[in-house]
């Protein structure tokens, strides 16, 4: 730390086009309390922000002064007027390029030191960064990195020191300390540990469990694969087992022997082809079996080729089909022929027995004539009977027993005549009826004989029709020479015999083919097994473990990369947590020295328990938690109201600021509306504390009128200066009211 830094005191702030401020504005500061007084929106907080921006630049915007709602807040004033801005020596010097600028002027033992930060009007559009400049007491100008180096060398605060020991924004007071989570967040902010907490949280976020799980899963899978590979039988073992299964002694397998087997395999294939009358040749490339794989590949396809090509053996299929068809037709035709023969015999017998159709027709005709005559006689008998009846009537009318012929009297003559006449007529009728019935039967018999002849002729015609149909079909299947044979059935039987004989002749050839192909297939498999064994033997010396596979390197590299990244994240997380714990302990050792004192001053609580207020930490590998306890070690948070909690927040700042001031460096304290959420008693206490602080550090405090401002004006005993801001005006922006007489008076 530089000695010079210890004596630097902030004397003025100059700002232009910074947030609400448009025109170049100079805020003069003094030792003691500098009170920026203004209504809401007047720009008093912007003055506090200007100090912060000048010291830390874009970092303030990206980090939002540690307050989320400040993040990416507009720094530049939104106006179009071109105000004067400076040059390298005096950035605040008027010009017309419209840039934003803030200058902090410090008084030191050797003279003034001016810090300036400027931003071009088109910086955002052109991606240009802010420019930091230092004009030291010797008149030397430092810019950019050199200026930052100069600040560090002269004890200017880091961002974390600034947040913990120099400045408290009004929003900080809003942090509630009521529960464990917000207490951690609030105290982390108050102790200037936010960045470390953020970093640790980020590392925890990226070091996701899923990534670790992926590594474990992939490694487990990989181990399984290695185990599979280690326990799997080798190629030689597998080929040897295959040879044994196929009856090949692997011990006797040699490459020369395999070539001999290949030659024999090809020879036997040729022989079989010739025997089957196949027109196929072994390709030239295969006939010299130096390459066993080529022979095996050809031989494997040979059986299918043989079965697909037409040869002697392939006639069998056609012959079997023909024989089947002929047999079926013969079996159908034979009963049909017998049926025709039977019909012919029946017709012949009928003709012989009952004569031909003409004769039967004549007999029928005669029978019908007989019948007609009988029928006429019968009718005549009817007439006779009627006559007899009439005669009987006459006799009855005569009523005489005397014979009309001889006139002799015959007792009951009429009765006897009547009886006799009836008997006679009955005999005649009976006789004629019988004759008529006989004639009728004769007609029927003659008709039946005619019908029977017709039926026999029809049956014969039908039987012959069926026979002819099947015979026609049979003729189409007969050899051409027999197609018109007189007896196609006999020709068919003959053809069937010939076909069967041909089948009998060819069947052994088919058997030979199938046997030959089976043998060929077995020989091929054996040759393939022998070749595989030979290849396995040849390749054994080249067998590779998994670690020599091409993919192994990439796998290992990617595993290493991921594991390394996770380990690095884990390591940084651990380092961050360690640093967080260390710094937390450091900060708390500072804070706890005076925390109780300031808390008691603000709250007016003078009991020993309040004065013994301390913050305790509890660190784990992944978390740092806090407890606020009284002098007896009892937790205080549950019994404190919000005002007292805010008092703790302010006490933490004051305790660190006091320590910071003791260690040297530029001395000032910035408080933006610290009375927020404090009650009247606490405001009075805060006024006492600020009065006390001015004994060793200048204070810049932004306040609304009344409240703490009144307290400070009326009761503070130290040096006090009031800088009043006008209400914000859309034309002029934020402006400082000229100091009234006595306003900046020292006691």
């Amino acid at each position, binding site marked *: 730390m530089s000695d010079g830094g210890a004596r630097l005191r902030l004397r003025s702030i100059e700002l232009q086009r910074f947030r609400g401020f448009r025109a170049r504005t100079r805020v003069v500061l003094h030792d003691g309390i500098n009170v920026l007084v203004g209504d809401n929106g007047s720009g008093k907080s912007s003055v506090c922000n200007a100090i912060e921006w000048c010291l830390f630049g874009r970092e303030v915007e990206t980090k939002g002064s540690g307050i989320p709602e400040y993040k990416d807040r507009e720094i530049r004033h939104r106006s179009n007027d071109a105000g004067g801005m400076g040059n390298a020596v005096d950035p605040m010097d008027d010009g017309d390029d419209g840039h934003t600028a803030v200058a902090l002027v410090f008084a030191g033992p050797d003279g003034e030191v001016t810090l300036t930060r400027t931003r071009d009007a088109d910086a955002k559009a052109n991606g240009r960064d802010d420019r930091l400049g230092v004009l030291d007491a010797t008149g030397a100008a430092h810019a950019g990195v050199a200026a930052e180096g100069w600040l560090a060398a002269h004890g200017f605060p880091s961002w*974390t020191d600034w947040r913990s020991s120099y400045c408290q924004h009004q929003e900080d007071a809003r942090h509630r300390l009521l529960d464990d989570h917000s207490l951690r967040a609030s105290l982390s902010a108050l102790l200037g540990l936010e960045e470390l907490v953020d970093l640790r949280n980020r590392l925890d976020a990226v070091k996701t469990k899923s*990534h670790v799980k992926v590594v474990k899963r992939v490694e487990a899978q990989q181990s399984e694969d*290695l185990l599979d590979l280690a326990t799997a039988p080798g190629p030689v073992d597998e080929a040897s087992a295959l040879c044994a299964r196929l009856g090949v002694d692997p011990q006797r397998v040699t490459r020369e022997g395999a070539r001999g087997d290949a030659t024999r395999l090809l020879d036997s294939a040729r022989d079989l082809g010739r025997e089957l009358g196949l027109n196929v040749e072994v390709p030239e490339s295969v006939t010299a079996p130096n390459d066993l794989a080529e022979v095996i590949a050809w031989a494997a396809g040979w059986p299918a080729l043989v079965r697909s090509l037409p040869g002697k053996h392939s006639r069998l299929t056609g012959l079997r089909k023909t024989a089947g068809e002929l047999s079926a037709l013969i079996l159908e035709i034979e009963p049909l022929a017998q049926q025709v023969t039977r019909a012919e015999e029946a017709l012949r017998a009928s003709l012989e027995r009952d004569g031909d159709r003409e004769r039967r027709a004549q007999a029928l005709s005669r029978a019908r004539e007989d019948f007609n005559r009988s029928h006429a006689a019968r009718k005549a008998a009817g007439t006779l009977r009627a006559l007899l009846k009439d005669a009987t009537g006459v006799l009855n009318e005569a009523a005489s027993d005397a014979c009309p012929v001889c006139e002799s009297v015959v007792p009951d003559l009429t009765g006897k005549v009547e009886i006799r006449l009836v008997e006679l007529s009955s005999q005649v009728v009976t006789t004629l009826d019988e004759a008529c019935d006989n004639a009728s039967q004769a007609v029927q018999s003659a008709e039946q004989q005619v019908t029977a002849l017709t039926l026999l002729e029809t049956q014969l015609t039908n039987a012959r029709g069926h026979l002819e149909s099947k015979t026609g079909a049979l003729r189409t299947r007969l050899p051409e020479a027999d197609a018109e044979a007189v007896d196609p059935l006999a020709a068919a039987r003959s053809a069937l015999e010939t076909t069967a004989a041909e089948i009998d002749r060819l069947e052994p050839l088919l058997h030979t083919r199938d046997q030959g192909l089976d043998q060929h297939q077995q020989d091929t498999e054996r040759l393939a097994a022998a070749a595989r064994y030979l290849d396995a033997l040849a390749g054994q010396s080249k067998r590779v473990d*998994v670690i020599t596979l091409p993919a192994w390197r990439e796998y290992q590299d990617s595993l290493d990369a991921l594991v390394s990244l996770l380990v*690095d994240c884990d390591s940084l997380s651990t380092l961050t947590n360690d640093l967080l714990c260390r*710094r937390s302990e450091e900060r708390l050792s500072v804070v706890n020295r005076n925390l109780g004192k300031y808390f008691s001053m603000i709250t007016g609580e003078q009991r020993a328990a309040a004065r013994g207020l301390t913050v305790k930490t509890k660190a784990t590998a992944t978390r740092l938690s806090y407890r606020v306890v009284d002098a007896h070690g009892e937790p205080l948070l549950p019994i404190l109201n919000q005002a007292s909690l805010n008092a703790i927040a302010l006490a933490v700042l004051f305790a660190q600021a006091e320590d910071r001031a003791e260690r040297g460096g530029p001395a000032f304290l910035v408080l933006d509306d610290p009375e927020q959420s404090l009650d009247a008693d606490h405001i009075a206490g805060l006024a006492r504390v600020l009065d006390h602080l001015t004994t060793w550090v200048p204070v810049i405090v932004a306040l609304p009128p009344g409240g703490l401002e009144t307290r400070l004006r009326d009761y503070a005993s130290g040096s006090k200066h009031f800088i009043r801001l006008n209400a914000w005006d859309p034309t002029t922006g934020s402006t400082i009211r000229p100091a009234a007489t006595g306003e900046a008076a020292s006691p």
Partner: protein
Amino acid sequence: MDVWQQLTEAVRESGVRVDERLRLLKSLRSEEDIERLGDRLDAAVARLEDAAGQLRREARGR
């Protein structure tokens, strides 16, 4: 000394994968960088899974 300087020193003092960890530390200074680190981890996981799959295929192919 700010936290980044202190962490940088802590990494250097650890003496393990110093360059890699310093690069990683540098890449953790903003939320955008954190997102990129997340993407980098996802890509590393994807690459590992691809490589493991390829290795399995090759091992079983033998």
